[in-house]
């Protein structure tokens, strides 16, 4: 720690007078908590495996750390227009270096000079640049550098964004203490999160919906769209947790989709057996997702039999 109450300013000392003992107790309770940067990285499954496991375990046990892991909400910083331009220029400059013939093949030059193959290589290079020129600032038409795409399983379940819809219980929600029968506070509170989701701002959607989760524990839309948003963000454990919560609510309108997206999340978590069990259940039960679930079961079986 770099500061304590002896370093507070006057406003803080006066404002927190009488609460010092509680604040001390809070600090003692959380003195071994991981720093915020580790918590946030673990939330996105972006840590090396050993550290990921330790921090994830801590997050699941600590509401305080979950708060930090969720970040600063609507106030999340972004890039200014200037910063976007600067970053794009940097990317294009790097891309230009990679595609520049002399740079990309420079390391081969001594070998080629020594072996007497220069003429043949030059001819081949000339032909290749004539047939596939690289436009300045545009995407490469030929791949000169063999880049590795992110590692993904050989077969991935289709993951499409479901449209926003609302269950009957939410549409007719009045709350226990509502005095105005025409108001629906749940719908009003859902709007920012669902608007963000519609605009594909999944980080904002996740934040907005997370805030509502404890306030409206019976509204299935909250954990469902939270789960989908987390899937888009790549937070697979978080998606599974949210979809589990949605499933527990037991809303028949969402049941089929919850089950499908839960299978998607299970597969992306590496739990192929769990995904397959869910898909088999959807496949045999029939309904909206049955056909694609049956197809997926088949494809998973093929991949399992022929992993390469």
């Amino acid at each position, binding site marked *: *720690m770099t500061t304590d109450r002896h370093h507070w300013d006057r406003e803080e000392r006066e404002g927190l007078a009488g609460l010092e003992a*509680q604040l001390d107790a809070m600090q003692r309770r959380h003195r071994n908590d991981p720093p915020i940067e580790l918590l946030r*990285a673990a939330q996105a499954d972006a840590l090396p495996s050993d550290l990921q496991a330790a921090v994830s375990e801590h997050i699941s046990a600590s509401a305080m750390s979950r708060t930090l892991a969720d970040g600063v909400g*609507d106030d999340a910083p972004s890039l200014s227009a200037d910063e976007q331009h600067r970053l794009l220029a940097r990317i294009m400059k790097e891309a230009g270096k990679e595609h520049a013939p002399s740079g990309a093949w420079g390391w081969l030059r001594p070998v080629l000079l020594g072996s007497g193959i220069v003429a043949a290589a030059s001819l081949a290079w000339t032909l290749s640049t004539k047939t596939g020129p690289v436009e300045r600032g545009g995407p490469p038409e030929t791949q000169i550098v063999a880049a590795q795409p*992110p590692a993904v399983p050989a077969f991935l379940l289709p993951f499409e964004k479901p449209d926003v819809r609302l269950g009957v219980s939410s549409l007719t929600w009045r709350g226990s203490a509502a005095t105005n029968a025409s108001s629906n506070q749940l719908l009003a509170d859902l709007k920012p999160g669902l608007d963000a989701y519609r605009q594909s701002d999944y980080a904002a959607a996740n934040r907005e919906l997370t805030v509502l989760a404890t306030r409206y524990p019976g509204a299935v839309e909250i954990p469902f769209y939270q789960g989908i948003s987390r899937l888009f963000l790549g937070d697979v454990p978080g998606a599974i947790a949210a979809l589990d919560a949605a499933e527990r609510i037991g809303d028949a309108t969402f049941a089929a989709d919850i089950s499908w997206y839960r299978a998607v999340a299970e597969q992306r978590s590496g739990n192929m057996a769990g995904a397959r069990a869910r898909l088999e259940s959807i496949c045999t039960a029939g309904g909206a997702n049955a056909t694609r679930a049956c197809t997926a079961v088949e494809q998973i079986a093929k991949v399992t039999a022929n992993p390469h």
Partner: protein
Amino acid sequence: MATFEELYRQHVQAVFRFALSVAGKREVAEDLTSEAFLALHRNFAAIDQSQLPGWLLTVVRNRARDWWRRQMVERRYAEHFAAASEPEAPPVERWLLDSADLKQVHRVCLVLRYVHGMTRSEIAARTGLTEMQVKGHLQYALTLLRKAHGVQEA
């Protein structure tokens, strides 16, 4: 089919915010964002654009893991982070976590300031907020805290 620049403009904010969340430092987040779009540029002909932005986020996550691995070598992180050592949370902690009056940003600023003991500039560096924003959020949250806990105004 969108051009590279169109895809960049469409996804750069989301990719950057995600990178900032996994690295915690603005300059590292810019590096990760740059690497992700460079990977997209290299693979542009082969990429299925319907996989975006997930594909970019996966690149960021993989690069972030490498970055954290290097940090682990340079800095020893505890391998086990104990849960709260005292079973009973004081009332102020329960209020901090549960109060509907607080926005997420207030909670984060309060926790970093009064639990993790950070200065305002340290909070700003870790959240991407400005110091002025941090100060404002803390002042507002302190007002709510005083009201909730009956602390007398000075």
